[in-house]
Every structure is written in C-alpha cells, then in structure tokens.
C-alpha cells in the first residue's frame, strides 16, 4: 500500500488519475480505516488530503459557507455561525459516531462513503448544499443528492474527489432540522433519517420546503411530495399528517439486521413530522 499526502489539489488529482488498482481518499479516516482493518478493502493507494490548503477551513462565501473536505464534525460545531444558519446540517454531522470520532469524521467523507444511512446527507440535501468536485478534466459543482448512486457507489469519475461543500445563504425565516432513529442513544447507524429545511413568511405560512429521507432506499431520497404536503400551510395537524403519509409512501426500505420494512416506513413518517415541527419553530424564531 502506498500512502501519499500531496499539498495541492492538482497533485492529488494527478495521483488518483494515474493510480492502478484500488485508491482511496483519507480525510478523517473514520470509514476508511475501519474498512481496511476489517478486510473489506485493501487499497493500493491512499491519498491523504489534509495537507492541501483550504481542506480544513470554513470560509464565508456569497452569504453562505464553504466547508473544506477535511473539516471535522467538532470543528464544524465549534465554528458556531454555520450551525446558526443551518442547525439541521451541523446537528446531523455531530450525530456521527462518538466524541472521539467527531474529532476526525467529516461531512464529505460521510457523503462519499455513499451509505444510504449517512446522517449528514439528508440534512445537506434539505439545505440545498452543493459539492465541489475537482478532477483531471474540470471542476464542477454538483447537488449533494447527485453524489451517491447506490450503497458504496458514487457518481465521481476516476481522478475526481469532493474538495468542499457549499451551504448557500439561508433565506430569512428559514429553519432546518435532522432526526434519526437508532435503537440506542448514540454511536449507531440510522435506521431511518429525516432532514428538512423550510422557510415561512411573516404570517407563519410555509413558502418553501425541502425534505430528504435517509436509510429508506439505496440512497438518500429527495421527497417532493413531502415538501408539497406542507407548503402553503402553517404546519397544522392536517399538514403534518399529509407530510407523514408522504414520507411513509416515499420510503422504499429493506429489512435487515437494523430494522424491518414496516418499521422503517412507519418511522419515516414519524421522524419527518417531528423534524418539521422543530424546523418550523426555528424558522419562526
């Protein structure tokens, strides 16, 4: 196994483009090292991107924030301002692993591991986040929902990697939230996850919303029917019932060691409803 720690994006892309066999990016390593240790993968090349300038920085951009690929969950939380604008995203990221893991784990790693249960992903999708993909041919900005294709598979081409996440400026009176269900209280993988962001007008009527569900399909879902169910409402009980029903209807889960189909369908609705209530309260301040 070859380990490289280049100090430019160009050098990293060069290494990845030319690599033969299996190559992997190392940022926090909280998925990579576990997969290597358990024998799931034996990479021929590991490219550590932490030495590349900008990878560990959060910078303000166009009223929003650009978050480097190696920014850890703990750093994201300590930043403060990101969490104030997009509490759902920061809360979701901070749910990953334990306190120790938070010192290493990154949002981009969570995204590119392409697990349907990734906590930060539905929250980022709901916030309208984009991923900046660098590669041998060009740099492109891709909606977060288009990165993962299936469990463990991404849309990234050979030589490409995600260098940062951009969270756009939240419109006035916007609230966000993410909830997940796990059988214990921490250090677990979501059985169902629900991320939501919504904007209300001065009267408390929802004018815009985006809802994303995790762990109920091969990748995080964007559920337009959930958004439709609450846009134009003041999140009354009927709107919440419609939202829950739409979330359950959209869920196409499997039964496995973590949960059953019936359970995931029901709980998708429960969590969408509960997350919406939190986001709505936050939007109204």
């Amino acid at each position: 196994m070859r380990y490289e720690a280049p100090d430019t994006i160009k050098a990293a892309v060069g290494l990845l483009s030319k690599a033969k066999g299996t190559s992997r990016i190392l940022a926090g390593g909280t998925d990579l090292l576990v997969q290597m240790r358990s024998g799931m993968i034996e990479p021929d090349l590991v490219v550590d991107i932490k030495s590349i300038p900008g990878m560990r920085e959060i910078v303000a951009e166009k009223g929003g924030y650009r978050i480097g690929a190696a920014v850890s969950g703990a750093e994201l939380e300590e930043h403060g301002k990101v969490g104030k604008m997009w509490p759902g995203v920061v809360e979701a990221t901070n749910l990953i692993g334990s306190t120790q893991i938070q010192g290493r784990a990154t949002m981009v790693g969570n995204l590119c591991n392409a697990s349907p249960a990734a906590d930060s992903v539905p929250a980022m999708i709901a916030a309208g986040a984009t991923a900046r993909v660098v590669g041998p041919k060009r740099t492109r900005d891709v909606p977060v929902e288009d990165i993962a294709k299936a469990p463990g598979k991404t849309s990234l081409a050979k030589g490409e990697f995600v260098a940062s996440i951009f969270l756009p400026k939240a419109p006035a009176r916007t609230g966000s939230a993410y909830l997940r269900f796990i059988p214990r209280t921490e250090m677990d993988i979501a059985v169902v996850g629900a991320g939501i962001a919504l904007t209300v007008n001065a009267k408390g009527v929802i004018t815009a919303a985006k809802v994303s569900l995790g762990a109920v399909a091969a990748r995080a879902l964007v559920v337009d029917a959930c958004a439709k169910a609450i846009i134009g409402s003041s999140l009354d009980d009927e709107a919440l019932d419609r939202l829950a029903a739409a979330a359950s209807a959209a869920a196409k889960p499997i039964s496995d060691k973590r949960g059953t189909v019936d359970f995931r369908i029901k709980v998708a609705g429960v969590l969408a409803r509960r997350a919406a209530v939190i986001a709505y309260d936050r939007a109204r301040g």
Partner: protein
Amino acid sequence: MPLDANTPDLRTEFKSVGTRPNRPDGVDKVTGRARFGADFALPGQLTGLILRSPHAHAKIKSIDTSAAEALPGVKAVITYKDIPEQEGCDKDVLVNIMARGTALYDGHAVAAVAAVDASVARKALKLIKVDYKVLKHVTDVDEAMKPDAPVLHPGRFDPVDFSTLENAAHVSGKEERKTATPAHSNIAGRYVFGHGDPDKGFKQADVIVEHEFKTEATHQGYIEPHACTASVSSDGMAELWVCTQGPFMVRDVCASLLGMDVSRLRVTPSEIGGGFGGKTTVFIEPVALALSRKAGKPVKVVMSRSEVFRATGPTSSASMWVKIGAKKDGTFVAADAVLKYQGGAFPGSPVEMGAMCAFACYDLKNVRIVGYDVVTNRPKQAAYRAPGAPMSAFAVEGVIGEIADKLGMDAIDIRLKNAAKEGTVSSYGPTFGPVGLVETLEAAKAHKNYKVKLGKNQGRGVASGFWFNFAGNTCVSINLNVDGTLALALGTVDIGGSRASMCLMAAEELGISYEDVRAVIADTSSLGYNDISEGSRVTFSSGLATIKAVRDLKVRMCGRAAKIWGIPEDAVKWENGAAHPAGSNAGNFPPLSIKEIAAQASATGGPLAGHYEINAEGAGPSFATHVCDVEVDPDTGAMKVLRYLVVQDAGKAIHPSYVEGQFQGGAVQGIGWVLNEEYFYGKDGTLQNAGFLDYRVPVCSDVPMIDTVIVEVPNPGHPYGVRGVGETSIVPPLACVANAVSSAIGVRARTLPMSPPRVLAALEGVAASKA
C-alpha cells in the same frame, strides 16, 4: 493453639472487611500499564491467524495448504492433521478448535498459519484452498428438534419419541406428537426436575397463565478479545501467556489435546478485560501451541472482534413454555415448564441449570421442569453469567407478572407470598438453608424507587432471581515477608476486584492494615490446582482459603513467639496483629508484633508461610429482586430505562463497592439482552452482525445509574458469611424490563430482544385489536 476459640466460625464484627479501599490493580489499569492478553511479546515471535469456515454447515472435501506453505515468511500451516486425537481428550473441544471433516458453523476454524508478520499471515490464509460441499443447516432450536431437521452429528444422538413424555405438545407441536422417529436427532440431552403432582395442583387453581417465550443468543461482550502467546521449545517445554478465567483449566485441556505431560506446560494468566464466563474454555490456545510446536518459534494469536462473535461461545438461544396456577390470594398451587436451549454445534447448553433455576425463587408443592439440550449450526456456547438462568427467569417471572395483574395484586406482595425461605424444598431438590429472598423483596418494597409516581407511557416492572453459586477446588499460599508485610498468592484470576477482597480478608484475620498485603495471581507452576474463576465462586472459595491460610500462618507465628518466650505453643494467642501470651498463667511477656516475628523468622526456624487447600462446599445461594421503570415512545417503539434498582443478598459484602459493581454490571448486561442484543443470522446461516456496531450492547447513555441495595443474610458456609454475588444480578433484568413495558403500554413481550421494530409491531397489533 486453640485457634477456633478466639476466631469463631461466623464472624460478625469487622475492621477491614466492609471498607472500600482502592483496588491494588487499579492504578495500572487506569494508566494503561496493566498487561492484558495481547500485551505479551517474545523475541522472534510469529503472528498466528486462523482460517474460518464461511459456511454454516459444510463437508470439508479437501484442504490444500501447499501454496500457503510456499509463501516466503510463512513458518507453519496447520490443519486438524497436526492435532491428532489423543486418548482421553475432550473430543468436542478438539473438534471445536479445528474442524475435522465437517465445518459445523460459520466461523468454525479450518486451518491456521504462523508467519513473520500479520500481512504475510493474511496472504497465506488466502492461499489455503478448502473444497467445501455445503450442507443444509439449522440455527433455530425449534427447527433443530423437528424430525426433518438436518442432523449435525449423524449416529450420535438417538431419536426422541415425545409421545411417551410429559408436555409433548410443548416440545414439537401437536402434529408431531407422534414423532416419525428419524434415524438420528439433534437432541443431546433431556433433564427433568420437580416434585409433587402439577396436574393435580392445577385443578386447585383459581387462575392459570401459560405462554411460550423465546430469547435470542447473546454474547458476553467482553471488551478484550481472546489473545495468547505460546512458546514451545525443541525439548517440548512450553509456556503460554493468555487471557483466561482459568489458567489451570487451560493448562490441563491444552496438555490433553496436544498429548503433553501437564508438567511441561506452564500457563501465566494476564489481566483480564472481561470474561463473564466466555473465557472458561479454550479456543485459540491449543492452536497457538500447535503452531509454535510446528514452527519452532513463539506464536501470538489475537482474535479480531468478528472472530470473537463468530467463533467463541455466546450463550444459548431458548424456546420455552411456562404455566403457573394460583389461588385468588396469590398462592401458587402448581408450576410447569418445558425449556429448549440450543448450545451451538455441540452438547452442553446450560438448559440443566436453567431448569434448576426456573422456579428456585418459590416455595412450590407441585412443580415440574423438563429441559432439552439441542445442537444447531452455531458456535459452541460457553458460560455466560448465571448460565441458563436469565432465560428461564424471563419466562417464569413474566408469567408471574401476568398472574399478579390478573389478581390485582402488588408485584412484590405476590412474590413475598410464595418466596422460598430457610427450610423450603427447592424446585430442583435441595432444602434451602438461610437465604435472603424475602429480605430483598422487603427492601425493594421500602425503596424510594418503588414509590415514584409514573407518567404517561411509563411503567414499572419487578422480577426476582436466583443463582446457586459455586465453590470448588482452591489453593492459596500466604508468605510473610522480612518486614512483616505479606505476599498472598492466589490461583483464581481476578475478574471482579477479588484481589482487593482477599487482601481485606487477610488483613482482617491478621489484625493488620489492608496496605500490608499484596495479592498476586500465580501461574500454574506456583500453586496447586484451582478451579476456574466462575460460578461466583472466587470471593467465597479463595476468600475461605485465604482466611484458612492466614490461620495456618498465625499458628506458625504463635509457635515462633512461644519459642522466643520459652512457653508452650498453645499458651500463645493472636490478637490485633501480634502474638500475646494466652493468659496470666502463660507468663508476662510484651506482645510480639507481626513485624517483630518476621524480623526473627530466620533465627527462629526459617521463612514463615501459610497454606490452605480445599475442594470447598457450602457456597450459599444469592437471591435478588429488581425494580425498573421504563418509558416507551408509542410512535417508534423506542424504550428508555428511567430507573433501575438492584437489591441482592451478598451474605457479607467484603468490599461493598465491588459488590455494587457486580450488581450494576449484571443489570446492564441483562438490560442489553432485553433491549437490543441478539445473534442475527442470515438465511444462509451466517452471522450478520459480528461487530459492536450491529451487536448492540448498551452504551453509557442507554442506562440510568443503577441503584443498589446490599442485603446481608450471612452464609453459614463461610467464616465471614460471604455469598457469591457476580451472577444473580443478570437473572431478573430480562423479565423486569419486560414487565415494566407491559405496565407502560399493555404489550407483553415474550420474544427477545424487545427491539423497537418488535415493540412497534406489537403496539400496532394492540391498536388493531381495539379498533
């Protein structure tokens, strides 16, 4: 010296015993200095790895190791052929450590390599070619008992004709009552306990409750994986450093499997990062020795967590039926049970102990328990804290909870009404001596937790539990050092703070300070044989032997004082850490302290030591009563344990903090068993959750601080009244939590774990039946 005159058999006044000093092994453990199984290293040592079956059940047609052997850096490759069967060895253990012709479970060892490093060893494993013919498998206990089930050991166990046996309907289903008697079966054993006539008893009942229950297999979940380093020299002398609960067992079993004289193998136990019964047998130890023997170099084998789950010894899964009848006033008139436990691929599930414990808490005139030991394509089960008892208590205490509800009786009152006491003929035979169940029930009822008012979706559960406690072979030495301090050599691995407890008992007996005694766990060549640290036997047995060894030393020290004073030995007595003339007739001499006697030891006859060896008996049983409050989220089935109380009889708590630690640890493991822990098998019979991510032991935030109350009803079998406390605490939680859930949301959980999907499905079932 008339020792027993001034040291009565049951002591009630204590100076050291009952205090809470820091444990002698504490600093090394919290600073990382303590040496655990994987911390031993020898010059030139190789890395050993084991190839394991990916199939639940498969014929091994051939194993080709030639490519692995040819890989540079590989020093030895072994299969079963390198461990030929020795006369008199335990064949099941032999087959379990290395498959012989058939892989019997996912993870069953098939071959092993020793190489210069882990990377070479991993490559070598991949080069071993095993030709398997996959066979039909069975992992469920009820399925394994069916006449058409795949048979694990053809020709070994005779078929069972249930039609002639009690409670046939609860064994194999009505349509199979008349078993089509297949050629062989997976039923390895049948056990029956009880007395009176249950069928007659049920006729007197005003209320009868009967149900079927299922529990899934759970793992002890010790944090430290199995690890050992073996070194076999060219002259056949061998050493083994290993993490185990029983170094003498490891020595004797390995010697027997490998055809060695016991004297040639010296086993040194490491500190132990948890065992809970799972480290009471061998897995990697004989393999490491065989690799070392073949390679001619030391070999270290450390299991991964996945190997620990797939190939060590979880406990049994169980399928049970329990029926209890009661009068309107709550008096039980009859009890009946059928227990079926699968113990993995070999005989030896703890169903016999499960059957003995099932109704042990109650004074029953008519009781019957039938237990079946069944083999399946799962790893060979090992002991797990009160082996067999938590499952049967789950069923029995659940039925009792339902009877109390039906009669409108308080959950503690109905247990008080039927509680076993001194003189009760137990359901498994013996008559109880002084026991503390009633005291635990009364203390639980008086505790503040029992009076807390509950809110919406909250409920309270109660359950009691019993464990026999073991005693057994024990051998202790205590050596007086030149400065009057003491070195205490124990042969029982310290799995729960026992070194501290032994030092307290030695200090108490001598009338000296706790700090003046240092306890060590000796290797197998330094002491006589000691049974494994299991069955909650250590504080009782090694404590008893320590006290008696100290008394032996005191006799010798009094003898030296007599010599110095020139008076008869029986005119000297030991008091407050010094030898005194026994009375004014003996002479008027100033006392000789232990330090003074130690200083003059050489001049008065040589070193001073005390010994004691015994196959101990008289371990008094320990009863417990648990109370727990839970809250259930009715929309998701998620459960939160709000409060948890353990009340248990310790006889005499030598070190109360470590007694409380045992109470809390057992309760938390039991809570894990109820809520989420399970062996989850795929359709192909392979384990799907061989890691702590998806095998969910509770994390700290999952449980409240466990409240404890120590009840002390002295055990007359121990000089200080000690009872073992390590195991009873895991017996009540399964039923206790289930009873609490029932009281919270009206759902009776009879299948474990009560994972959120199961609870939610049950809640929806209740809602549907009301609609």
